[in-house]
């Protein structure tokens, strides 16, 4: 009897079942989250190598390590892998899958089988997309703009079908999160008590469910255009290439918020835990996520200011785009107000959160420059745009993924990462990031266009700085990876709550047991009751 009890106490989701097969067929949301972690990390490595190749080619004027054709392909795969296989599944399917059910006191997500299926959809989609390499590779950029992408190219067909299948992964995750949030909250966990990470994931899930099908039909039509020449996007039959851009951005602009909203959620958790203070403006932060999700569906035209859409449409889209700044600023100001008079602990996760706030603000404000039609005409298709969206996606989303990993690492694995090394990784990534992308704002405003493998000689100086910065980022992620692996193997044992967090995941064991809680928690207070 005593041994049975002891076994029970040590039983957690990692040793609940054993063997590779138990992982590949698992229905436990925590294990599926880790499967996503491994997958996304591998794709990030691939996309990161492409990024370094791009920067290395751009180190000097002229052809250095690759031809223009090769460059176009490397750039396409960098974009497609990073967007569809890293940043979109990154936070929701990995950290979200792991922590959304625990944070609301549920035993699992609503549909565990669909959850596992979503992971296989991602793998299958990635597999189909990467077979395009056997057809010489796609060189259209990740946006597949017509008419260039409808030249009966088998590589584009593979990419399109791969994205279509991977889209199911996103839809199933989103669908699961909406139903889980509505139906599986623990007793007492009202909608006004769910953690802000859950609010952010819920808002994201709505976008995933409503926007992804439109991408689905768009890439299906793109494939049909390549196979049958259906003519929707082909002027020869009266079709319209700009219609493709409308369809594509109707998904892909909301998708930008699929990438950033979960990051906001992570930051809300980090700021309040490491300032040891009740979050300022819980309701405002929660509803601003929903507001961003809603507005995101009405701004797609700002990608097309110079495409020939009507001037009136341009003005409306410009105005609506600036509206996004309001809920975003609400979040930033509330986080700052939370920091005010907080007992701030500058552990690695908090450093990442503060780095996020700095970089995301630059990314957000330059977004307003681009939303202004007059300035956008100058900046359009220059490195200014490249710098802007990297500040948001890398400076925003990747910083928050790293912060989230170091924050929840003790909960996921029951061990602590070496905080000093985690901070070193932050310094390299943060400094390297600014060295890489800040010069690109300058290059863009000087008129250096995107997507080319070469540039005018006068741009070489700033491009060299940018390339050196990208190597610093690479070092930072390697240090981060080593810190994580070291933590997994040799890390000190952590208790259930090493950071003094107040949300439900910190009330259960580290690592959590198979069904998350030994007894279903009953919630009697809000998520961040510090003082």
């Amino acid at each position: 009897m005593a041994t049975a009890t002891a076994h029970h106490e040590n039983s957690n989701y990692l040793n609940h079942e054993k063997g590779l097969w138990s992982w590949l067929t698992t229905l436990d949301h925590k294990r599926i989250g880790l499967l996503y972690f491994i997958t996304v990390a591998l794709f990030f490595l691939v996309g990161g190598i492409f990024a370094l190749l791009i920067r290395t080619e751009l180190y000097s004027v002229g052809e250095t390590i690759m031809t223009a054709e090769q460059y176009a392909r490397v750039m396409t795969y960098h974009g497609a892998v990073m967007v569809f296989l890293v940043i979109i599944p990154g936070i929701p399917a990995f950290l979200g899958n792991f922590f959304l059910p625990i944070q609301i006191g549920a035993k699992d997500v609503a549909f565990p089988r669909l959850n596992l299926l979503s992971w296989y959809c991602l793998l299958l989609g990635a597999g189909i997309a990467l077979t395009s390499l056997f057809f010489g590779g796609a060189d259209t950029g990740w946006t597949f703009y017509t008419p260039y992408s409808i030249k009966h190219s088998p590589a584009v067909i593979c990419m399109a079908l791969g994205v279509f299948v991977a889209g199911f992964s996103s839809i199933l995750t989103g669908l699961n999160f909406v139903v889980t949030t509505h139906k599986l909250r623990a007793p007492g966990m009202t909608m006004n008590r769910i953690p802000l990470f859950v609010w952010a994931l819920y808002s994201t899930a709505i976008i995933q469910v409503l926007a992804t099908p439109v991408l689905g039909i768009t890439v299906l039509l793109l494939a049909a255009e390549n196979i049958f020449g259906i003519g929707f996007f082909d002027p020869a039959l009266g079709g319209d290439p700009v219609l493709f851009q409308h369809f594509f951005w109707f998904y892909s602009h909301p998708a930008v918020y699929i990438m950033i909203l979960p990051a906001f959620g992570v930051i809300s958790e980090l700021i309040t835990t490491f300032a040891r203070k009740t979050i300022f403006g819980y309701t405002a932060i929660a509803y601003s996520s929903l507001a961003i999700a809603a507005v995101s569906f009405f701004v797609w035209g700002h990608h097309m200011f110079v495409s020939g859409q009507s001037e009136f449409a341009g003005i409306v889209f410009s105005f609506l785009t600036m509206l996004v700044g309001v809920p975003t600023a609400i979040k930033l100001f509330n986080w700052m107000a939370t920091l005010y008079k907080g007992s701030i602990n500058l552990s690695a996760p908090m450093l990442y959160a503060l780095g996020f706030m700095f970089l995301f603000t630059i990314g957000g404000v330059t977004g307003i420059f681009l939303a202004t039609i007059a300035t956008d005409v100058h900046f359009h298709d220059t490195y200014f745009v490249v710098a802007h969206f990297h500040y948001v996606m890398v400076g925003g989303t990747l910083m928050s993924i790293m912060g989230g990993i170091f924050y929840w690492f003790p909960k996921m694995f029951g061990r602590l990462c070496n905080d000093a090394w985690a901070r070193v990784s932050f310094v390299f990534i943060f400094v390297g990031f600014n060295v890489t992308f800040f010069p690109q704002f300058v290059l863009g405003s000087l008129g250096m266009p995107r997507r080319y493998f070469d540039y005018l000689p006068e741009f070489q100086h700033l491009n060299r700085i940018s390339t050196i910065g990208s190597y610093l980022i690479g070092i930072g992620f390697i240090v981060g990876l080593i810190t994580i692996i070291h933590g997994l193997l040799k890390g000190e044992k952590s208790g259930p709550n090493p950071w003094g967090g107040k949300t439900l995941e910190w009330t259960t064991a580290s690592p959590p047991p198979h069904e998350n809680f030994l007894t279903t928690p009953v919630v009697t207070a809000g998520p961040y009751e510090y003082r």
Partner: protein
Amino acid sequence: MSTVKSSSTGHHHAHHYESADHEYQSSKQGVWLFLCTEILMFGGLFVGYAIFHHLFPETFKVGSKFTDVRYGATNTVVLLASSLSMALGIYYNQIRDKNKAVMALLFTLLCGVIFMVIKYLEYSHKIHLGLMPGDWYRGNAEELAQYVGGLEIPKNLPLYFSFYFMMTGLHGIHVLVGMGLITWVTIRTARGEFGPEYYTPVEGVGLFWHLVDLVWIYLFPLLYLVS
């Protein structure tokens, strides 16, 4: 995933739900959300249709003359009947009338078969005339003009058939998937797995089938009746 046997109903529900009803309500919400994604996916095609019909009304008018309203109308009636029998299939499962439920579901399946056979006849006819989407179009303008009573054949007529085949093709795939799902719930019904306490799969498949019907209700006027 283990299941928990509820003492009150005798039905098994998944371990992370409190009760069978809790699971049922959650599943139903999931199905409805999935239907939203379906509507948005078809929405892309409907938006494209609206734009190009506005730009080239003549193309759509002439194109629709090559469809046979009798076939389209028959298929509409067939699908409406199948929606009724599907609803009855759910109802008979709810009151555990196994034989009637199986009959209703088999009738629904039969309607699906009739629909696909008629679709096959229509497709063969169009392929015979060379009326294929986009690049695969092989129509001869003079022959076709006779067919529609001497109307001028618009140059971008293939665009109409791109829409015709994309829309009915995607819909046809949904009918086939629906038939597969109906077969699955029919077998489970015949095994006596459903009753008043548990009929979630039948209801979910039913909702899907109604959506497939509903899409056709829009496709019929847009593709057959616009002339």
